[in-house]
């Protein structure tokens, strides 16, 4: 019975019944021009690029966990996104603390 189950599983393992959609990636570096609960816009060398953000998006400030509220317009950011559902969904947004003002 064990052998029969194994053969059956082997047969099923070889079956191909559905296509798997490949997920493309997109990374961008730019300056934040707007940020909201569901969208982030960066000004990159190619112009303005919009990214969907949500609860799955991971925000990282100075290498530590952060949130969208920590991100300000004018900040430099690196966005790692996937093409999904006809749009770019950011899965990770990295940014740094604004540089300290220079002493006179």
């Amino acid at each position, binding site marked *: 019975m*064990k052998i*029969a*189950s*194994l*053969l*059956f*599983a*082997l*047969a*099923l*393992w*070889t*079956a*191909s*019944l*559905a*296509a*798997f959609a490949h*997920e493309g990636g*997109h*990374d*961008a*570096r*730019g*300056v934040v021009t707007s940020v909201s609960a569901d969208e982030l816009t960066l*000004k*990159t*060398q*190619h112009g303005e*690029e919009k990214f969907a953000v949500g609860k799955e998006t*991971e925000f*990282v400030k100075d*290498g*530590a*966990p952060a949130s969208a509220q920590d991100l300000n317009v004018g900040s*430099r*950011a*690196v966005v790692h996104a996937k093409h999904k559902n006809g749009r770019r969904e950011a899965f990770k947004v*990295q*940014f*740094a603390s604004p*540089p300290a003002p220079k002493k006179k």
Partner: protein
Amino acid sequence: MKSLLIALGLLVLAFACIVAGGAILLVAGGVSAKAEPTRLEAAIARRLLRMGIPDEYKQLRNPVAPQPSAAGRAHFADHCAVCHATDGSGQTEMGRNLYPRSPDLRRAETQELSDGELFYIIENGVRLTGMPGWGDGSEHSKHETWQLVAFIRHLPRLTREEKLEMERMNPKSMAEWREMQEDEEFLQGRDQPARTK
């Protein structure tokens, strides 16, 4: 005697049906790994996996500290995360495209396995899956595997800080290292903004 022959005949018939069914599925679907495994297939595979682990392993308890060590975390980040993902979700390019898919190690199907079963799988691998047998039989290898078992138990409670620390330890190509360096330089304002790839 007659009933024995009937039982034997039914067994042979069932076996022939299984082989024929497998052949039909093979011809219809080819050997592509892109298909999503069916629930039935996954259930059978899980059952077979547990049946295939020797009983003496199933009873083993983890001899290392139940709390995950930094070494176990680093080992997982360096060796396992490429397929299982840093957080154990299996959501990586490799994990998503293996057949069967890399399991979500945080879920009950994995967490309900005994320490010894997890140890056996890591040491010996699983045939007809992407899981290699990592053990070399040495005490050092066994110790590292037990550290991994402790870390797998911790995965459902992995913190964001731990995940970020592990991501820095994930294997990277030269191009990925360079890109990470450029990202850092950009964020620190040491580069011109606005590069897109």
